[in-house]
């Protein structure tokens, strides 16, 4: 069965959605992703949707779900690369994705996540925070 790859980049997970998300694929992604967050102890999830030109309300809900679930596991979600038409559609559908951070592209999304991390790690002296 088709699966969307989830890449681990340091403390973060990167998901690049390159195919049209049909409902079942989205549900699988949600499940895989949350398992992966748990397994790797990731602190951030980056979802790149720059290749998506169509988004329906179900897709919007899945993204919201992923953000909510990740936040329970103490990981922040950033959605990057949304196309203007997709943004307009989501707003018209009444889905402003309020729990989700957004960035223009993967680079900025990474920077955003990295910028949010030190605040928490500075206070506690953790060994492996050198790379950030």
């Amino acid at each position, binding site marked *: 069965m088709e699966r969307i790859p989830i890449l681990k980049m340091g403390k973060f997970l990167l998901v690049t959605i390159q195919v049209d998300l049909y409902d079942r694929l989205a549900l699988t992604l949600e499940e895989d992703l949350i398992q992966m967050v748990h397994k790797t102890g990731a602190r951030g999830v980056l979802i790149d949707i720059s290749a998506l030109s169509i988004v329906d309300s179900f897709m919007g809900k899945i993204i919201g779900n992923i953000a909510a679930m990740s936040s329970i596991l103490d990981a922040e979600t950033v959605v990057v690369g*949304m196309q*203007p038409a997709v*943004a*307009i559609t*989501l707003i018209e559908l009444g889905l402003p994705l309020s729990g989700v951070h957004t960035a223009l592209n993967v680079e*900025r999304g990474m920077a955003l996540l990295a910028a949010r991390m030190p605040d928490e790690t500075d206070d506690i002296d953790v060994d492996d925070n050198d790379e950030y």
Partner: protein
Amino acid sequence: MTIAIVESLRTKQDQILDNWVNQRELADDFQGNFNSSDDLKAQSSELLDVLLKAITAENITDIYSVDLEPLFDFISGLTLSRAKQGFSPRETATYIFSLKDALFKALAEIVGDNPRELYDVTLELSKFIDNIGIISFETFIKGREEVILSQADEMAELSTPVIKVWDGIIAMPIIGTLDSARTQVVMENLLQGIVENESSIAILDISGVPAVDSLVAQHLIKTVNAIRLLGADCIISGIRPEIAQTVVHLGIDLSKMVTKATLAGALKFAFGTLQLEVKRMQKEKLNP
């Protein structure tokens, strides 16, 4: 009108045309028209030809009849071409109505010995020609409306320019009322501008918006949310005191948005967000 009369009119076509053209050339308003007598004759001949071919004993009282369509198409074309040449709608209509004189003259020759019939036929034909005149007017107005519509579209497009004010900062000044259709254009252009310029901040300046009601505020909130989805921030600037007053009186909550009184204020805030600093340079002394 009987079939015989229509037939008689057709046989008298040349005579009617001569009468009509001569009368047009003598008319006061002909001097103002800048097509030559030859042009006038050619055009009139064609119109009369189409008219007499299309008209029958039945459809003269039924203006919606299908077989009159070639005539109406011709009239529309004639009106449009005359409008392009600079004729006023009055001149075109007068030209069409002047056909009556020539037609009535021919009718008088055909049924002159029966005043009752002449009266009926004249009335019918008069109404018919009136309708043609009205169609000419309608075509003219339709043409004008098309021009106005396309201009309105252009204005909507032109009045929402995306301006790059700094690296990573774009601005869009809005002038005029924000209605649903316009908000759509504003939103699309602004979001496209953000993606194209890789801007992280968009400033929406509403100094040129005369009034903000709850609908406009709702549109603004939508736009701000859509911008946030792209991963950029939106600042609304140019809020005049009256607008601040109405917004609060209407109970609209704009507290979740960044709002500034002036474009300068918004720019300053944007610089702060991007950690940019603007400062006055010490002028180098030219003559030490």
